[in-house]
């Protein structure tokens, strides 16, 4: 597949400035009102009330198993989590990420303002570059983890978790400075992640790592970022909702000889866990901060001011009570799962937040928050599974390394 043309302006595909802002803000205020009035109804959703991505019909047509996830009906797998996982590790796989939120920040003060809202340093981004970063509350707790792309001098695209999109928007809007515009383009755009070592055989002119470019592909304006959540080389591509099915099928067709597979959330979870990439809602929450989560690298303490900085700095200086650590089971046995208790010498020291059988290692792996004094690489711990303790060892990140 050949990306035929590169646009240097990075405005995002088909984004119609004035119209877009108005309509997205109107939509936002409506959904916000509904949520505040009916919190229980919003969460206790029936299948019919789940949102569908622009690729929903295509997933169903291709026989994917659909499950509710973060308010969306998403494919958990097409054929087998293990097969889809291996396709990404060995060849290439494609995931629907249309459920993820896409927020736009613009305006003359956008850069300086965003730098007070996010932990990483926006000033380090050149136009077309992205960075992993956190949105924190006043207590330093994690509202969301996201990628912020600088798409022009004063314009940013924030790609956020599906389950947090509304919350992020409300938080940002509530703290919005003058001369900053905030838009939610999520409803008008879709996206896919195309991941795996053979992605370089699928596309030419891939953007540099963590960079995003606007391209036109077979008449479709797209934004392509060299980012992902699998540990493999790959891209995340954003396009207009109306182009979603055409783009999806075009990539599957072009990737046929490379062994491309459509993949579900199941494989996305095992792939990210092998790399120790955190999942918000499991490994991250408003009660946890980036230092405890072992992700202090994405916090720039040299910035004079950002929400959560003071609390976070204290945690950094005094040390956190608990730390998120990756671990590997010592023996073949039942895989660890979220909420299993962690012990050391009979003392309960923590809880598993993510766990599975790693398809690459064919072995049980996971991540757990454990009390800081016990959080040492190489330390032996026990995972309690159905009343029985199974030995495990704290490992270095990542749990899986390419041989």
């Amino acid at each position, binding site marked *: 597949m050949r990306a035929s043309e590169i646009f240097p302006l990075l405005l995002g595909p088909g984004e119609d400035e004035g119209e877009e802002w108005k309509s997205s803000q109107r939509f936002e205020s409506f959904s916000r009102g509904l949520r505040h009035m009916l919190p229980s109804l919003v969460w206790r959703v029936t299948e019919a009330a789940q949102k569908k991505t622009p690729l929903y019909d295509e997933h169903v047509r291709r026989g994917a*198993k659909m499950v509710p996830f973060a308010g969306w009906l998403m494919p958990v*797998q097409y054929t087998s989590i*293990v097969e889809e996982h291996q396709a990404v590790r060995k060849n290439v796989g494609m995931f629907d990420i249309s459920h993820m939120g896409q927020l736009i920040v613009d305006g003359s003060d956008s850069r300086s303002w965003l730098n007070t809202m996010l932990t990483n340093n926006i000033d380090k981004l050149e136009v077309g570059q992205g960075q992993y970063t956190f949105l924190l509350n006043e207590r330093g707790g994690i509202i969301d983890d996201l990628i912020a792309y600088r798409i022009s001098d004063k314009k940013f695209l924030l790609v956020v978790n599906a389950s947090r999109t509304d919350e992020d928007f409300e938080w940002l809007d509530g703290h919005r400075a003058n001369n900053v515009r905030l838009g939610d383009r999520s409803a008008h755009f879709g996206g896919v992640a195309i991941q795996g070592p053979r992605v370089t055989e699928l596309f030419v002119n891939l953007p540099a790592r963590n960079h995003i470019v606007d391209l036109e592909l077979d008449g479709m304006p797209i934004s392509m970022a060299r980012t992902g959540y699998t540990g493999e080389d790959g891209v995340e591509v954003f396009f207009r909702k109306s182009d979603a099915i055409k783009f999806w099928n075009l990539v599957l067709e072009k990737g046929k000889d490379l062994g491309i597979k459509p993949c579900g959330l*199941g494989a996305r979870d095992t792939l990210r866990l092998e790399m120790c990439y955190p999942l918000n809602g499991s490994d991250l929450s408003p009660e946890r901060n980036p230092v405890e989560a072992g992700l202090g690298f994405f916090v720039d303490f040299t910035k004079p001011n950002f929400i959560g900085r003071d609390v976070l700095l204290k945690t950094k200086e005094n040390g956190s009570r608990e730390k998120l650590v990756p671990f590997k089971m010592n023996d073949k046995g*039942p895989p660890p*799962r979220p909420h299993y208790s962690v012990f050391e010498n009979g003392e309960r020291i923590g809880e598993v937040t993510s766990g*599975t059988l790693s398809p690459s290692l064919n072995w049980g792996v996971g991540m757990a928050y454990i009390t800081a004094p016990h959080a040492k690489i190489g330390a032996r711990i026990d995972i309690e599974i*159905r009343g029985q303790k199974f030995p495990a060892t704290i490992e270095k990140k990542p749990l899986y390394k390419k041989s």
Partner: protein
Amino acid sequence: MNVPDDLLYTESHEWIKREGGKVRVGITDHAQSELTDVVYVELPKMDRQANAKEAIAVVESVKAASDIYAPVKGTVVEVNKALEADPGLINREPFGQGWIFVLKIDNADDLKNLKDAAAYKQQIG
């Protein structure tokens, strides 16, 4: 989806094959296809007594752990050790080499509470 006519079924997706005063138990083709990629099986202990609908084994896929229930009251007299080395047998041969345990049943009348193939087919749609 394969639902053999000569077996009995539970609502919780176990199949039951009568062998004299014993029953052989596994999970259905439908269940294994829903679970996919079985990676670990925790077998019941030999000689364990169980009531109907009591969880006595666990089948784990990549994604989740699922309890397997005793379909009727009885005693565990055989377990499929082959599943320890090759849990994928449940995916490949759910009604054959993927069986999980054999129960000696207390009362053959209890089998009347189980579904026949037609009723199970209706359940899974």
